[in-house]
C-alpha cells in the first residue's frame, strides 16, 4: 500500500511538473483536431490560409485524392497556403461556408444556391463544361425487372419499387430527379415502403442498387460514367434506364471577403487560376480527369435561377 501511494505521489508530482511544460508549448505535436478549419483560423496571424472544401458527393477516398491536388495546384498558382477541409455531409458544407470556415467550396446546384442565400455577397466563380447541361441517370438492378424508359411518362414504372436518392441535398441525386419524377406523375409516397431512401452519396447509390438492396436509384451522370469505366459498376447487375434532360449543376463559390483577406483582386486571380487549367499540363490534367471535365469556365449566379425555382417548388429552399 505504502509503495503504491508513494508511486502515486511521484506520478502526481510529475504531472504537476509537466503542467507548466505543457502550457506554454502549446500543441505538442499532437494530432490537430477536427478538420484544420479552425486550427488555422487566421485571427491576426501573418499569413492567411485559403481553406477549400467540397460537398462529399463521392467516396471519401476519391475526394481525398482529388482535393489535395487542387489545393497544391492553387497554392502553386496563387502563392498562398491552401488546405483542403473534408466535411461529412452536404449540409455541413453549406454551414461551414456560412460560418466562414471554408473560403472556396465546390458546391452542387442546390447547395450553391443555399450557400449564396445564407452568405450574401458570395461569388460564383467557375463551373465545368459539363455543368452547363448536367444530367442524372436513373439506374436499376437487373433483377428488378425494370426496363429502359423513353420519356417522362415511363417513370411511373418506378411506382412500387424500392428506390433510393443520393444525399437529401444533392441536385443531381435528389432535387432534379425528384422534379422530373413529379413531372412524370410519381410522388415520393409511391415507392415501396412509402418513401424513398437517401443513400448519402452517388457511389453508395450505385453500390446499393447493384447489391439489390434497392431496385432502382438515381445518380449523377459523371459519377456513373466513372464507375462504369473503372469497373465499380457491374453492367451485369446494374444498368442505366433513363437519362434526364440537362440542367445546370456544380460550381465553385468563394467567400465575399476574399479580396480583403488575401489582397485586392484575389478573387479574380483565383477565378483566373481555375479556368486556366488545361489538359496539357500533367498536374492539371489529373485534376480535370478526376473532375470528369475538359476545362472550367466562368459562371454567374444567373445560371442557377432554375435550380432555385425547383428548390422552392420542392420545399428544399425557404
Amino acid at each position, binding site marked *: 500500500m505504502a509503495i503504491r*501511494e508513494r508511486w502515486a*505521489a511521484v*506520478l*502526481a508530482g510529475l504531472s*504537476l511538473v*509537466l*503542467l507548466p511544460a*505543457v*502550457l506554454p508549448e*502549446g*500543441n*505538442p505535436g*499532437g*494530432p*490537430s*483536431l*477536427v*478538420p*484544420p*478549419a*479552425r*486550427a488555422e*483560423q487566421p485571427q491576426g496571424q501573418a499569413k492567411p490560409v485559403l481553406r477549400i472544401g467540397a460537398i462529399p458527393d463521392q*467516396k*471519401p*477516398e476519391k475526394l481525398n485524392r482529388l482535393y489535395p491536388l487542387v489545393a497544391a495546384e492553387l497554392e502553386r498558382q496563387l502563392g498562398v497556403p491552401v488546405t483542403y477541409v473534408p*466535411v*461529412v*455531409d*452536404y449540409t455541413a458544407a*453549406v*454551414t*461551414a461556408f*456560412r*460560418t466562414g*470556415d471554408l473560403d472556396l467550396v465546390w458546391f452542387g446546384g442546390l447547395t450553391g444556391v443555399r450557400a449564396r*442565400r*445564407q452568405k450574401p455577397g458570395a461569388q460564383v466563380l467557375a463551373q465545368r463544361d459539363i455543368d452547363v447541361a448536367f444530367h442524372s441517370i436513373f439506374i436499376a*438492378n437487373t433483377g428488378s425487372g425494370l426496363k429502359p424508359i423513353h420519356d417522362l411518362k415511363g417513370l411511373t414504372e418506378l411506382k412500387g419499387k*424500392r428506390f433510393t436518392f443520393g444525399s*437529401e441535398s444533392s441536385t443531381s441525386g435528389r432535387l432534379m430527379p425528384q422534379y422530373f419524377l413529379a413531372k412524370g406523375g410519381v410522388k415520393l409516397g409511391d415507392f*415501396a*415502403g*412509402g*418513401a424513398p*431512401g*437517401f*443513400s*448519402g*452519396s452517388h457511389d*453508395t447509390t450505385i*453500390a*446499393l442498387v447493384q*447489391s*439489390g*438492396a*434497392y431496385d432502382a436509384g438515381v445518380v449523377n451522370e459523371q459519377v456513373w460514367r466513372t464507375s462504369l469505366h473503372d469497373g465499380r459498376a457491374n453492367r451485369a447487375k446494374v444498368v442505366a434506364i433513363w437519362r434526364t434532360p440537362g440542367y445546370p449543376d456544380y460550381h465553385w463559390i468563394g467567400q465575399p471577403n476574399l479580396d480583403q483577406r488575401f489582397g485586392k483582386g484575389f478573387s479574380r486571380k483565383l477565378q483566373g487560376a481555375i479556368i486556366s487549367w488545361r489538359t496539357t499540363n500533367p498536374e492539371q490534367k489529373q485534376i480535370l480527369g478526376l473532375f470528369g471535365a475538359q476545362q472550367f469556365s466562368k459562371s454567374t449566379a444567373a445560371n442557377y435561377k432554375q435550380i432555385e425555382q425547383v428548390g422552392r417548388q420542392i*420545399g428544399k*429552399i*425557404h
Partner: protein
Amino acid sequence: MASLIPAVIRTKIHSAWAGWGAAGGQGASPDRAQTTLIWPTGIAAPLAMVAPALVLIPVLGLLPGLVHGGGFDLLAEFVQAAFTPSLDPLVVGSAIKGLGITVGIALLGWAASGLLGLALALASSRQVWVTYCGQVWPANLLRRLLALPRSIHELLWGLLLLQVVGLQAAVAIAAIAIPYGALIARVLGDQIDALPSGALAALRCSGVAAPQALLTALGPPLLPGLLSYGGYRLECALRSATLLGVFGLGGLGTELKLCLQSLQFHELWTGLWLLLVVMLLLETALAGLRRRWLMPRRLGLGGPSSGNPRLEAGAAQGSGSGRALAPWAPAGPGLASPNPARPGPLPTNPLAPESGAGHRGQGRAPRPDKLGRRGREMVLALVVMVPLLVWLARGMGVHPLGLLHWQPLPNLGGASWASVLALPWPQLVGTTLLLTLVAAGLAVGLAPLLLLVIAPWPWARPLLQLAWALARLWPPPLSALLLLLLLKPGLVTAALALGFHNLGILGRLLLESSDDSQAPAEGALQGAGVGPRLALFYGRFSGLARSYLAYGAYRADVMLRESVVVGLVGAAGLGTQLLESLSSFAWDQLLALVGVYALLTLVGEDLSDRARRRLLAPT
C-alpha cells in the same frame, strides 16, 4: 417514459399500493423494508420484467413485409469484414487519430460538464440557498430553467451550435457539456438536498461561516456519489462523442460514417474494433475504481438479500466488495441515507432510479484508514487529470472563446409560421412516441429474455456480452444505416436501431446487477430440481424486477430524447423532420421542432419519474 410499462400493470401497481399501505408498515427493520416491497399479485414481478418484450410480436409480424430482399450479400460482406479488418497502416493511423479526437472530445466534454454540473448543482440546491440567504425560490427557479438544456439531446446541441459558431473543436465539447452539466446539476442538487441537514445546522450554530460549513458538512458525503455518477457520465460521454462524429463533428464517428456510406467494411471494422477496445478499457477501469473506492454501484438493481444464505456465503463474501448498493445515492461512512423516518424523498433524480431503494442499501463502511486513502487517491486522480486535459485541449486546438464568435443566422426574418403550422404535428409526435415505445419495449424486454435463453450455457455468456458491447458501441445511426441494407426505411427500422443500442446498455446493467445480487431463492429452486432458466426466472428476476423496470423507465426517457438520432432512416417522426428542416435551413421549423422535442422530453421525464417513484417507493 412510463408508457413502457403497460397501463394495466401500472394501475395494478397503484391499486396494490393503495391496498397494502398497511401491510407495508410491519416491515420495521431495514432488511424487512425490502420484503415489504409488494408486487401486485395480478402480474407477477418476473413476468413484468419480460413483458415489454411483447412488442416483439408485432415487430416480428411486420418484419417479413419490411425485408426488401436485397442487401444480404452486403450484410454478409459486412460480417465477414469483422474478421478481416483493414490493417493498412494508413487506415489504422487515421482510425487512431480519429479515436484520439473522439476520446479527447469525450474527456473534455465530460470534465466541463462536471464543473458546470457541480456549480449549477450548488446554485440550484435549496440547502445552499437556505444556508446563505434563507430563501428557497432562487433554487427552485434555477431548477426549472435547467430543465430546458437537459431536455435537448446533445446531438441537437451540437448541430445548433455548429450553425451558430461554425465548425470547431469546442462545439462538440460544448454540445456534451451543456446537457450533461444540466443533468449532473439535477442529480447532484437532489442529492445535496436529500442529505441530512443536521450536521450543517450544527456547524452553522457553532459559528462556522457558510462556505466552510457547506464544504465540511456536504462535501464528504457527496463525493462518492459524485464520482460514481461522474464515472457513469464518462461512459456516456464516449458514446456521445462517437455519435456527434457521425454527424460531422469530428473524430472517429465521422470516419465510421464515411466508411459505412462508401461500404468500405474492412476499414469500418478497423475503427469499430479500436473503439471497442477503448470502451471496454474505460468501463473496466471505472468499475475497478468504483470497487477500489467502494463507491456505490452504477445501478443497485436488487438490494442486498435479507436472508442468510450461509451455503453461498463463502463464495459471495470473497467476490463482492460491496453488494448492490443504491446507485448514486451516497453510501459510505458518515453518509446517513436520507432520513428514513420521512416517507420521501422520493427518487426524483432521473439517473438514480434506486435512490429510494437506498434506504435498504447496506453500505459496508470502509475502515478508517481506507477512508483517508480513498480521499487522497481521489485528489491525486484529479491532479493527474488536469495536465492531461490541458494537453488534450491544446492538442485539439480547442479555443473556448471561439464559442463566442457568433455568426448571424440567415433569413430569420422571413420566418413563415404558416408553413410551420402546416407540418403534420400529430403524426410527427405520434410517430416519435410510438418509435420510443417500440424501441424501449425491445431493449427492456429483450435483455432479461436473452439472459434466460442462455442461462443453461455458460459458454454463451461471453458471446452475449460481446454482442451487447458492440450494441453499446455502435451509434444508433450507424446501425440504422446498416439495417437499411436489409429493411425498408421506416419506424420499425428506426426502432430496431435505437432498441439495439439501448439493449447493449440495459443488458450490461442487468447482467452486472444480476451477478451482484444474491438470490437465495434461485439456489433453493435449483436444489429442488428446477431447471436453470426457470430458477433464474422465478428466483432471481423476481427480486430484480422492480429496480430493473425503474431503470428501464429512465432509459425509455433517454430513448425519447435519442429518437432524433435515428431520424435519418426516414419516417421516424420528429427526428426525420428535424434533420430535413436542418438540411433545408428552415430555421422557423427547426425552432418549432426543437421546442416540441423539449416539451415532449420534459413530459416524458416527468412520467418516467413518476413510474420510477411508484416502482421504487420504499414500503
